[in-house]
């Protein structure tokens, strides 16, 4: 009996040894490049391509840029090295500076600029001349054999502008300037792309230009850069894409997201603020003074209330806000703060009385004019419509070019609309388009966090895989951080 027991025990342990090699294999998806070749990858675009995050470009953001993430995944299916213009000089890792959370007051984050270890060239921030003119600061040059051509701030409208990155007193794009050498200091972006393509001979590219052609207008409440006309966009976007495909490279184009879905436009709740302002009690002395000055009836006097007032490009230029207007993120630190002008009303507030005659209205304007929010703090309903209409028009251009050229397309507009509506669960982690807590958008309310960029990279990979019959593996986006909290 003893013998049998021993030999069975030995058999069991032998079985155990044999079993270590019995791990079941899951074959799919098998990694492959399909019909694409990722040997040399080049990325064209703006701040999103550069890895801009938290209102600045800095080393961590660059290392987590979607082109960098893509290149690492491409490397698993034959892709080569990918060189980025990193802020990797000594004590330069904070690049152009960025916003960070240092602590919390009653649960609200204290957000301050990072000012140490910047890559700003000493002295380039000096204010010169009489009267003084602030200069565009210079950032540490990069002389690498660059494959990430993302230039923060660039519009498709800018790509053919000579001297776009040339250091001159009238202002220039300092992110572009740092990529240029002495020989091509006055190059346009398009010429720079041409030079890079000639030098690198890319086999694969991504082009995510176009956001700033609507974003500049939207984030300034319609006051800064105009929306790029469709014809101009079409010409210049085609020119860049033609350069990229000339050598037979395959690639991916990406559409422009609906910029008004991002936290910069959605965090300050217009309807809630309007309700809060309206519920404010108008002081009795003000009511009495206005009643006397304008000869108000008791009914009119009873209707006196506060309202939220904005400045618009329409007519009238100053009007009460409605829930259809979007208050931009910076307005949260302005609304209902003490006046900075002679107007005694807090900023953004005005007096509203219903049923006034024309004379009384004029009288009210003279006696207690509203203290409206600046035009740049509000994207009003008409402006929203213009932004969205133009976005759709420009996306049609991008989609058509992708189809004509047989390129993959990442429809970021559809994707981010979905995120804004439903959130995005990734590996049992919920992400949303909310400011600070949503994980996907950084502290500037526009640019993604590393998590957001990882999600973008995964979506691009899906589009590439579908178009080229490839099986490039995606990443576990939960391995990338959302908004960083201090520890």
């Amino acid at each position: 009996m003893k013998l049998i027991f021993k030999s069975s025990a030995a058999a069991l342990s032998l079985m155990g040894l044999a079993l270590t090699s019995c791990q079941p294999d899951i074959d799919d998806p098998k990694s492959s490049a399909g019909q694409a070749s990722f040997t040399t990858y080049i990325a064209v675009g703006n701040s999103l391509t550069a890895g801009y995050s938290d209102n600045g470009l800095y080393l961590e953001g660059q290392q987590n840029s979607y082109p960098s993430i893509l290149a690492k995944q491409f490397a698993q299916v034959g892709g080569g090295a990918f060189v980025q213009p990193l802020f990797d000089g000594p004590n330069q890792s904070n690049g152009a500076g960025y916003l960070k959370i240092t602590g919390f007051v009653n649960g609200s984050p204290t957000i301050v600029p990072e000012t140490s270890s910047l890559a700003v060239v000493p002295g380039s921030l000096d204010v010169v001349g009489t009267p003084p003119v602030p200069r565009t600061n210079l950032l540490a040059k990069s002389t690498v054999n660059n494959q990430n051509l993302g230039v923060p701030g660039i519009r498709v409208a800018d790509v053919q502008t000579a001297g776009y990155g040339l250091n001159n007193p009238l202002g220039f794009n300092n992110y572009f300037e740092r990529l240029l050498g002495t020989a091509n200091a006055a190059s346009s972006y398009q010429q720079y792309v041409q030079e890079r393509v000639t030098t690198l001979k890319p086999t694969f590219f991504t082009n995510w230009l176009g956001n700033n052609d609507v974003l500049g207008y939207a984030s300034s409440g319609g006051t800064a850069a105009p929306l790029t006309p469709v014809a101009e966009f079409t010409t210049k976007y085609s020119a860049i894409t033609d350069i990229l495909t000339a050598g037979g490279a395959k690639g991916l184009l990406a559409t422009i997201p609906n910029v008004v879905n991002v936290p910069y436009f959605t965090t300050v709740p217009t309807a809630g603020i309007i309700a809060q302002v309206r519920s404010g009690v108008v002081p009795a002395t003000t009511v009495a003074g206005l009643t006397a000055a304008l000869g108000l009836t008791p009914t009119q006097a009873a209707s006196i209330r506060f309202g939220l007032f904005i400045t618009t490009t329409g007519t009238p230029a100053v009007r009460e806000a409605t829930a259809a207007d979007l208050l931009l993120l910076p307005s949260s630190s302005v609304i209902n703060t003490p006046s900075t002008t002679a107007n005694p009303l807090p900023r953004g507030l005005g007096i509203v009385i219903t049923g006034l005659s024309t004379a009384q209205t004029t009288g009210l304007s003279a006696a207690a004019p509203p203290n409206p929010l600046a035009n740049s703090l509000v994207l009003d309903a008409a402006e929203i419509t213009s932004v969205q209409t133009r976005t759709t028009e420009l996306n049609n251009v991008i989609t058509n070019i992708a189809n004509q050229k047989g390129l993959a397309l990442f429809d970021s507009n559809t994707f981010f609309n979905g995120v804004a509506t439903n959130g995005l669960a990734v590996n049992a982690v919920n992400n949303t388009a909310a400011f600070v807590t949503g994980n996907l958008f950084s502290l500037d309310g526009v640019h993604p966090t590393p998590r957001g960029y990882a999600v973008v990279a995964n979506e691009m990979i899906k589009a590439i895989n579908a178009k080229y019959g490839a099986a490039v593996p995606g990443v576990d986006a939960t391995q990338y951080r959302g908004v960083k909290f201090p520890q």
Partner: protein
Amino acid sequence: MTVKTLLLAGGTLLVSASAASASGFQVSLGGQKNIGMGNVGVGLSLDQAAMFYNPGALAMVRENGVQVGVNAALARSSFRSADGGPQRTLQNEVVTPFNFYASFGPKDAKYKFGVAVYTPYGSKLKYADDWEGRFALTEINLQSVYVQPTFSYALTPQLSVGAGLMILAYGSVNLQKDIPLPTGPAHITLDGTTKTQFGYNAGIYFKPSDKLSVGVSYRSKIDATVESGDVSFTGLAGGASAATVNRGFTATQFSATLPLPAVASVGVGINPSEKLTIGLDASLTFWSAYQSLDFKFSGNNGNAGAATDANTGLVGGSNVSNSKRQYQDALTFRLGGQYKIDDKLTVRAGAAYDFSAVRDGFVGPETPDSDRAIGTLGATYQITDSFGVDASFLFEGFKERSQSQQDLVSNGTTDRVAGTYKTNIYIPGIGLHYKF
């Protein structure tokens, strides 16, 4: 050996089982002889393990006896994310489901009584560090030990009935996962033991001839309830974020109920010759009792400052956690046989097919369930007339199973991960029996 000491022995056994050998987290490893023949047994009266398979058949087992069996379940699970990336594997652990039976009764009496100790449900899985689903689950260990005093009575020489009182003598749960925080991943552990609960196992056995026997049996549902398990956190936020982040994590205790579902079975036994026995079983496990896994949290560890009702019992800012299961009743078909080569040696073989309890889109890392094909081998060597060794080997191959993120979104099950699971389980087992 008295019944009392047996009960004590059962209570102190450290028994766990992987999600082996039946749908969901059911563990159908009732007796070594039965395991060797595809786990059939409802229509047979092989040995004391009848107390598990069909208490009605116990009175038809000729001899009294004591038997013990232990299995080493070696699960090999793989997972690949829907996004691609590296194949993840479970950290390989061996779990040892256990069974023990003893029966008594005067010779030639119409009745027998006995006691059974077995582990009908359990699961133990530990995923690789940093795997994609770590925010759904990193580790689970479910254990249950049933102790079942049993009585069986032969109404006629052809017909017997039996019933046992199933006592959930020991049950425990340990669930662990990571928590995504803006300061980096934290970790939560839920750990508790179950209340003692009762159920029944009853069966009827009919043997109209030497060549044929049939049986039906029913094991009732037992709710495994943890009333005040421990909640513990590690890796919560420190420094300037501590107050803001950690205020949502104040719970110290949890309560939850996990149904251990009822099983109804029918079986047929055929004896074409003295030497050959063939069994055929069909079982239905009423998994639809498992609709959701709900935790209630309580207690206050002071992370939110002075305790108030609003800041007590929070995990991620909520004092409940609800996760959809919506399991479906699952069928299993089994076929097996034994052949008695001589007085010393009996050999066995069997096969089974087990349908998954988990619907598409609901597969989670704690039960990576799928339809399973099962093959078994077994043998008994009779050292003396009354003492023998039973060996068994069971292989279970799970059908590869995938679900996409879209499946999860449309089912409201995004608390788990999209990807493909595949599992193989190897269960060698050995038992000893002594007849008297």
